[in-house]
């Protein structure tokens, strides 16, 4: 495998939706012998996808179609129920608000912690610290616990860290939409530059225009199935056409 490559082979992910799953031993004991109806919910089904190194890949799909789950599987946060995912290279991810930050630690401490998790040395992190503080624009708040940050500040710092650790793979969920206009534009510029320097980027966004302009290839997830992969314009057109057909029915019903 080459650096920056992502291979997803026949991956399915099941979540157990056991609504009255006991959360204490006491409940569990009291419930012995009673049958619980466990709903299995397949969030992803048989996803096969190969993302070339050095490419900008976009994921589209309606709410609840499994985009974030797929990113979490790639980031190794969850394990696929079946199938296999292999990635090659240092991966940084910006998946949700406060992605990878411990609320009690200060921004600065979190930056070091994140670096450690990515396998970078303290020395390296100290060197890029100024860039991170500069890019995030959060100023003196860097030495405050992140739990007092606003949503925008979380995202700013998260993005600043994610792009300043020389990632070979970068996963970005739609969170950057929380940032203000100016910040979003800087994020786009930065991703563009990373892409030029050979970083593989996977981006989830509901912004069709943005996806068309940034992505080399786009995949469309529908109820956990990857229904189409290919040229951004083709896939996004097909997705939008489908979406307008069953308008008002965009939220998946759990079946």
């Amino acid at each position, binding site marked *: 495998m080459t650096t920056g490559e992502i291979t997803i082979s026949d991956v399915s992910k099941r979540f157990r939706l056991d609504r009255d799953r*006991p959360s204490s*031993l006491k409940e569990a004991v009291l419930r012995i012998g009673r049958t619980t109806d466990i709903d299995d919910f397949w969030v992803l089904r048989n996803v096969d996808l190969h993302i070339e190194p050095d490419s900008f890949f976009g994921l589209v799909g309606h709410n609840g179609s499994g985009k974030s789950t797929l990113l979490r599987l790639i980031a190794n946060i969850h394990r696929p129920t079946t199938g296999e995912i292999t990635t090659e290279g240092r991966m940084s991810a910006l998946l949700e608000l406060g992605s*990878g930050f411990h609320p009690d630690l200060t921004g600065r401490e979190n930056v070091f912690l994140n670096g450690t*998790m990515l*396998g970078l040395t303290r020395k390296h992190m100290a060197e890029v610290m100024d860039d991170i503080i500069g890019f995030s624009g959060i100023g003196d708040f860097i030495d405050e616990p992140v739990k007092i940050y606003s949503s925008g500040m979380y995202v700013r710092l998260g993005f600043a860290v994610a792009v300043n650790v020389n990632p070979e793979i970068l996963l970005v969920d739609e969170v950057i939409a929380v940032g203000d206009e100016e910040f979003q534009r800087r994020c786009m510029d930065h991703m563009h530059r990373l892409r030029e320097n050979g970083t593989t980027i996977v981006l989830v966004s509901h912004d069709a225009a943005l996806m068309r302009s940034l992505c080399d290839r786009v995949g469309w997830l529908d109820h956990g199935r990857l229904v189409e992969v290919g040229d951004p314009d083709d896939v996004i057109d097909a997705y939008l056409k489908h979406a307008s057909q069953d308008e008002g029915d965009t939220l998946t019903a759990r079946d």
Partner: protein
Amino acid sequence: MMLTLSPSARKSANLIIHFAERESKARYKRSLLGWFWSFANSLTTVAVYSFVFGAVYNAQPPITDNGRAENFGLYLFTGLIAWTVFTGVVTGCMGWLQDVSDLRKKIYFPTETALLGGAACNAIQTALEAAVLLVIMALFTNISWTALFLVFALLLTMMFALGVGFIVAVLNARYRDIQYLTGVLIGVGFFLVPVVYPPSLLERDDVPEIGRQLVTWNPPAIFVEIARDGAYFLQTPDPLKVLVATAWAVGTFTVGWLYFRSRSMEISEEL
């Protein structure tokens, strides 16, 4: 000396250091006196027990090898160090895992590093306490090379406690009342380990045989006995006990580790 580690081992090592630092900072912040507080805590315990058992009940501390009646406080402290490692690490593991579980839902890292880091912090504190104990013994009573068995016993206790801690931490992530149950069991367990009473108490006729066996052969009791043999009685422990203790420690650690590794990916899915 340069250790050559694979990148992923180095990453884990750095994470362990991070979590150890964090644990020590948390302890430090909890009180102005920081580390000193934990000393004060053990010294107070020793003082209280010495007073209660020595002065009030007039208990005689076991006579050591060189025929001198020793201080009941030191006798207690030796046993208490091992027992505190056990309870501190087992309870700690549940907290350490809980502490990082939100983080782990958002970013991947080997979760066991949080538990190993917490345990490392505990080990440093224990080492300091043991050093204080040995210095006091050297100054006021006596020590010998057998004090190494104290170190050995503490290492075994640490391994055993981590093994148990790995298991209860995973269970506690699933069933939140495991921590209370563990607390109760530890409270009961304290009286199954001859820390505040000398093992000779078991020779009394009104102690049932099963109780005697339980108190003699449960793992923490063996660790305590080895520690005390080496540091307090200045004698080499019973080789059979050393063997059994080692088997318990290595076995429990291995089982706990394997169990933790097999379940650790599911922790991110617990809501």
